[in-house]
Structures are given as structure tokens and as C-alpha cells.
């Protein structure tokens, strides 16, 4: 089955997909939905991103936190791998660097549960084309 039969189809699809992302970001679909992205490019994986991702998936489930954990590509902060981005409802996304299991645990307990920041934040240092 071909899904996109015309540009109009594609545009409709974009709208609905964006709406889905928006819903997710505004946390309307599910109260307190936390979004986590793990940088899983070659260098991230080499420095242990896979282990962190598995740990997050497992622990968030165990601790009853409603979260979406996805993988993404290189964020550019190769010196601070593994890096993850955490987006809480109603807050800007925050990137943490040098995340191992211990740090991941701290992020879950302090930041995700209580909104308290923890050491190891990587400030975003680029401008995306959407900002212009």
C-alpha cells in the first residue's frame, strides 16, 4: 500500500504528525509524559549509549514513570558522550552529558521526578534553522 499519493497527502500527513508531536510536547495526550532522546550514533554507542538506553527503558518502567525513550543521531557533543536529551512537560528540553547508569539514576530521581536539575548539563550551543 502506497501511503503518500500526492503532495496534498504528504502535507496532510505532516500536519497530523506535527499535531501528534505537539500533543506529546504539551503533555495533553498523557499527563506527565516525559520524552527522552538518547544520542545513538557510532560514537555514542561506543561510549555506552546503548547500555544507558536499556537502563532507562527498564528503570522508568519499574519506577512507574510514563516516558517515551527514543534514539537519535549525533548531537555534536562527542566529548561528552553518552548524551541524552530530557524533555519534561512544560519545560525546555535539557541535554545531559557523560551519562552512565549512575547519572541516569540521578536524572530519573532528581530531574524527572522533582524537576531538580543535576550536574552535567550541556548547554545548547547552536542555532537551528527553525530559529530563524
Amino acid at each position, binding site marked *: 500500500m502506497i501511503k503518500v499519493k500526492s503532495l496534498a497527502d504528504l502535507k496532510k500527513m505532516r500536519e497530523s504528525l506535527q499535531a501528534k508531536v505537539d500533543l506529546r510536547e504539551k503533555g495533553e495526550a498523557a499527563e506527565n509524559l516525559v520524552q527522552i532522546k538518547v544520542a545513538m550514533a557510532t560514537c555514542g554507542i561506543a561510549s555506552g549509549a546503548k547500555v544507558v538506553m536499556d537502563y532507562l527503558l527498564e528503570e522508568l518502567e519499574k519506577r512507574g514513570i510514563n516516558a517515551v525513550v527514543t534514539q537519535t543521531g549525533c548531537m555534536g557533543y*562527542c566529548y561528552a558522550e553518552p548524551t541524552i536529551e530530557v524533555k519534561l512537560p512544560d519545560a525546555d528540553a535539557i541535554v545531559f552529558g557523560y551519562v552512565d547508569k549512575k547519572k541516569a539514576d540521578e536524572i530519573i530521581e532528581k530531574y524527572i521526578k522533582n524537576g531538580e536539575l543535576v550536574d552535567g548539563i550541556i*548547554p545548547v550551543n547552536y542555532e537551528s534553522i527553525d530559529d530563524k
Partner: protein
Amino acid sequence: MHLLVCGGTGCRASASDSIAEKLKAELAANNLQDEAQVIQTGCFGFCEKGPIVKVLPDNTFYTQVKPEDAPEIVKEHIIKGRKVERLLYVDPAKKQKVEDSKHMGFYRKQMRIALRNCGFINPENIDEYIARDGYQALGKVLTELDPQQTIDIIKKSGLRGRGGGGFPTGIKWEIASKNKADQKYVVCNADEGDPGAFMDRSILEGDPHSVIEAMAICGYCIGASKGLVYIRAEYPLAIQRLRIAINQAREYGLLGNDIMGTGFNFDINLRYGAGAFVCGEETALIHSMEGLRGEPTNKPPFPAERGYMGKPTNVNNVETFANVPPIILKGADWYSSIGTEKSKGTKVFALAGKINNVGLIEVPMGITLREVIFEIGGGIKNGKKFKAVQTGGPSGGCLTEKHLDIPIDFDNLIAAGSMMGSGGMIVMDEDDCMVSVAKFYLDFTVEESCGKCSPCRIGNKRLYELLDRITKGEGTLEDLDRLRNLSHVIKDTALCGLGQTSPNPVLSTLDNFYDEYVAHVVDKKCPAGQCKSLLRYVIDPEACVGCTACARNCPVNAISGERKKPHEINPDICIKCGACYEKCKFDAIRII
């Protein structure tokens, strides 16, 4: 409230640790430790004005903070809610204090176009790409523009090839479009042979659809229905993500027949390279895909006339393609407003070597090396002195202090004796020996030369031998002239780009670090202390306490001496392994 204290290496060097301590103590003294927390962060990319303290939620950005400022920040800002004016960042253009970092135009030196989705979307999910305007550019050209109009946009944007040469992309497409044939091909060069570069891999791993979409756009422009990605087999994750992406695009009807109901057909297949540097050269790449030996052939004929299977073929680099969809959607004028007169847009660089923030950055053309190295890159590791930066990989050269302020673009780098290449940037400090650096690259080229033509096959080998002699202290002043002459001969006579550029590391180090070469051949010394043969280990009898640690660890028993008496190294036996140097707790062993 949160007080973010930069814990990046640059700011740490200037006491950010003690700032954090002081802030914590001050908060505790005022019983505010629960209201406001002190958090250490990574580099803000603002190291020259460090240490940085940022206050959340109001985004106040303090620069050049000293530990002594901690009480004032807590008393004024945290308790009374008044910003500490004198620490605010001053916008250098407007000469005004900036209260909120969201209004700091200068803060963000990086701009992501090719990397726009990397680290943002899930590369294995086409829906996320579509939600970020994915395939809209393809839809737009297929329904609203004819091929020539699309080519005109690319031409007008000023996009130049990111694979090294910097050839104008629109013109390349136009040539391929004008050559008539029953079948044409679009090839994506994902060979990425420069040992210091990994941007193409990162783009394919982080945003494979952007390359697929751009290849389809190119296919529409030149009249090709087939695309090929030539990718090195050593990139398994990139290959896997690309395969998933191609399959998803097919499933959605964004690759295949009658795309979006417009009658346009396009599909992509992968071809794997074995990881030879020369196979990144476009003619060699095409031969390799045809199942022949990966050897370059003379141009003309250019691939645009006779390429893959003898048909007109357009070869572009991964990063070049990744720039195409935003250009179509945002327009040529938007793109050409970024960059310098002759080099538009951004360039991705892989920062490596003796630099604090090793990583992948994307910056507008025209930024200076100083900004890249000392701000985004966070400066030199361990507070050492900057010596040189190597750009352009094995085809490039070393730039020095005096080049730090030139705007980076294709033409300026060539004028300075280096080149853009694929975007590797290796930073060197005072401990790096420039003769050894040149030797390292020549070693690489000798290994990677395909051997087809003699200037490259034999000439580079001779260059390497000369450099090797010099690092061993066996070189002469005449050798330096020989190096220069031979370099020029190779450049002028080699068949392909590999040989034509391989002497560049030698020439640029000769030009910029002639004294260092002279020190090797005349004084028989390596000023950076790297060339083993030119070093001598000696024991300072004043400092030696006769603990015997060195003697016990010397693998060849070159050290003699009685307990509690100064020891001595016999230079005829010593193999310069450095073990004694590591072991001596009294700093008594000197390298001269």
C-alpha cells in the same frame, strides 16, 4: 531557581570549581540551599569570556565571574532579584548589556542546516522526518517547478560541493541535465576517507532521509531514475539506518514509481566500498561500483558526460545533498545570505586533537579559526599553547597563529596553503612536532596510493623516506630543498587529486615551520620533544637521590649507579623507551 556554573574545561581552568563552591556556601549561609541550586554544566561555547554563570529561569548570563563575585550574586540576584549589572554580557556591536541570554545574538556561533535533524529526530522513523518538513522539498519541485527552475535555485543559492573540491553544485547538475542519454545516475559519495572526518557518517546515521530526498530532487533535475550510494563497509550503523530509511521511503511511495502521483520514478541502491581513500575520488569510485579496480582515470571525460556504465552521472557528497532540501524550502536568497561572498551557507567540521570540546560542529562560512578553536572548541587542552591546526586531511595543510583571524571559506583556506577538504580539523599544541605530522600524512598517502602513476607511487615514497631521515636526525639542509622540489614535481604531474594534493602537508609545514625543520637537520634536535631518535635521557645528579627505581625498570639495563648515589644512563645502550622517566618520583630524569 538554578545557578548554572560552566564546568567546561575552559572555565574550569579559570576557577569555575571554586565559584560553584562559593555559591553553594553563600546559599547555605543564607539558608537558601533549597530555593536555589548550583549546577555544573558543560561548555557554553563562550570560553573566551568565561567563567560563565547562568541563572534560571530568567536566563541571566554572567561572564568573567570570579569566586569573589559569589556573595554579590546571591545577595543581589537571588535574594533581592536585582541583576548584577557589572557582570552582564556586553553585546560588542551594540555596546549594550544583555540581560537575557535569549537575546544574545553572538552566543550561538553555530548554525545547523546540514545537521538540522541530527540529534533531534529518530533516524529510523520516517514519520519524524516528515513532521520536520521532510519530503516537502521533493513534493514542491515535482509539482511546482520544472528541472531547470530547480537547478536555477541551487545555482543561485551558491551551494558548493562539500566533498573537498568546492565545485558549484547547481552548475554540476546543469551539465548532467544537458547531456542526453537513455539512462543517467545520481551517486552519493559516502566514502569519507579522510582519517579526521566523520560528518558524512553522522548525517547518514542521524538523518538519512535528508540525503535520500535530495538525491531524488537531483534525479528529477538531471533526468535520472536511479540513485546509488557508495558507502564504506566500515560504517555498519550508517548502512543499517540508510537501508531502513530507503525501505520506509519505498513503503510510503516516496521512492519508486510515480512518486506523489507526478509520474516521476526514482529509486536508490547501496554499493559498498572497501575503505580505500582513493575510492572517494569520483572516477575511481565509479570504477569500483562497476566492479573494476578502484583506480582513477583522466578527466575529461567527466562523470557528467560518461560516468557509471558509461552514462551521465552526477556525483555529490553526503553533506552537499543534506543542504539541498532546506534550500528548496527556504529559498536561494535565504541560503546565500549566509556565508562569504564566494562560499555560501555553512560547513560541518569535525574538531579533534588537542582541543577541549572534541565534536561535530556546523558553522557559517566566514567564521574565523579563532572562534572555532577558542570559543566553540573551548581552547587547547591542559592550558597548553596553540601551535597549528590541520585542515583538509591528507590533502590539506597546517595553519598557524597568523591564520587564526582569516574568515574560513574555500578560497581563503587555499590561499593560506591548506584547503577545506571534507572538514576535518585537527588542533595541535606545543608538544606536536610538525615534521612528524607531515610524516604521518605521507605515511597515509603512501599506504593509500593506488600505484597507477609514478609521481605518486614513487614520489610520495621518496618524500616519506626524506621525512623519516629527518626525524631520525640523519637529514641535511639539502634534504629540505629536495623535499620542496619533489613536492612540486608530484603536484604538477600526478594523475588524480590524491597525488596532486598529497605533498600539501609537507609544503605547508615547510612554509610555516621552517625553523623546526632546520632544528632537526642542523642542531639534530626536535623542539617539541617528539622525535625519539633525537632525544636523550640524562639524569640530573643534583636531583637524583639514588632510589634505584629507574635502574630496576630499565628494560635494557642502561642505568647504573649505587644505592643512594646519583645514577647514570649509558646513551649507547638506552633505547629511549621512557620507562625511567615515568618511574622517577624525583624529577631527576631530563629529556634533552
